[in-house]
């Protein structure tokens, strides 16, 4: 149990996929326009990462070294297809707003990276712990980015249709640039610099 928690906690802060390892920026910047999208994307990543880590860990003894990358990619693509169809059927509005970024989980470096670096070398329980930890790390990073972008870009915050609160001045004149693409770069740059200043992540 202690080992399980240890593997899980590594992915959250020490090797946070977005802020520390700098993997998978594409979804982190593109879908962080609202907190809803960030949650939807994280659910997708959790499902795909958990599925691919479990399968890769189970078959790790039988996959020849030469063809392991194509095998991993097909496994990942299968789980991405499943989550794509599930989102399309049950949460069509989220499916629309995630657009092509949901199928693009296939080429997300985080998933293939964990399959290659962790699941193909470790037993199944450790791989599950790793998948959960990395997904929580990804979710936290996306939540922080999307929180600032939605708050500053629209002046208010809402969660799945429920309006939470509106900022006094920004509510009338929101800084729209934050929900546009350049805002993603700006928020991300400032967050990285802040985390470095606080000593959470290392300098170069």
């Amino acid at each position: 149990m202690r080992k399980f928690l240890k593997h899980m906690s590594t992915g959250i802060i020490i090797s946070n996929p977005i802020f520390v390892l700098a993997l998978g920026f594409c979804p982190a910047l593109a879908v962080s326009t609202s907190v809803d999208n960030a949650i939807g994307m994280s659910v997708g990543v959790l499902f795909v990462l958990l599925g691919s880590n479990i399968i890769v860990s189970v078959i790790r003894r039988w996959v020849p070294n030469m063809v392991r990358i194509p095998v991993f990619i097909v496994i990942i693509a299968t789980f991405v297809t499943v989550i794509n169809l599930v989102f399309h059927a049950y949460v069509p509005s989220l499916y629309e707003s995630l657009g092509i970024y949901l199928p693009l989980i296939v080429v997300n470096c985080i998933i293939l990276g964990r399959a290659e670096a962790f699941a193909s070398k470790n037993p199944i329980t450790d791989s599950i712990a790793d998948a959960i930890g990395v997904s929580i790390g990804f979710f936290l990073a996306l939540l922080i980015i999307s929180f600032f972008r939605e708050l500053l870009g629209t002046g208010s915050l809402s969660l799945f249709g429920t309006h939470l609160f509106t900022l006094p001045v920004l509510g009338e004149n929101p800084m729209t640039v934050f929900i546009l693409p350049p805002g993603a770069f700006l928020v991300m740059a400032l967050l990285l610099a802040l985390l470095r200043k606080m000593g959470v992540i290392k300098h170069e």
Partner: protein
Amino acid sequence: MSNLIMIFLSLALVNNFIVSKFLGLCPFFGVSKKLSSAFSMGIAVTLVMLIASMVTWVINNYILIRYGVEYMNIIMYILVIASLVQMIELFIKRTNLTLYNALGIYLPLITTNCAVLGITLINASEKYSFIESIFASLGGGLGFMLILIIMSGIREKLDIADTPRVMKGLPIAMLVGMMLGLTFFGFGGIV
């Protein structure tokens, strides 16, 4: 014809792959400050995007849609791209060794480049015709190359600039990305 030019300009400038769709960010941040390698990377990506969108268009329209198995598209596209990259690599190695030495190290990386899978998914979701998807992939690829070339020039100046310690590396590259994105808003009116 004007429709084709519109698709080309839209994907090259207005909805640029890097600064507005965030596809292919790894080469953007990782590209060295050498102009020639940015150029080679851009050419390699454009080439793979062009061939991949032609092949996936045929597969999509004559196999997947015909037999009603569109839900297999993600698996199909990634297999097509992975095998295409391998084939192009072998082909260039056999026919043109100088080109292979220039592009060689970039080709294997392209399989996991979001931009290539991105263009095939865009072609499928916009239901582009064969000619339209060729123009879309050229626009996307050349827009990608344009940003890589601009970035390689900026990188050269950034290295000698006195940036704050916490901003060095990735954060300052992100800020450059932001400014490029804002600049490219200027193209918004042409489409």
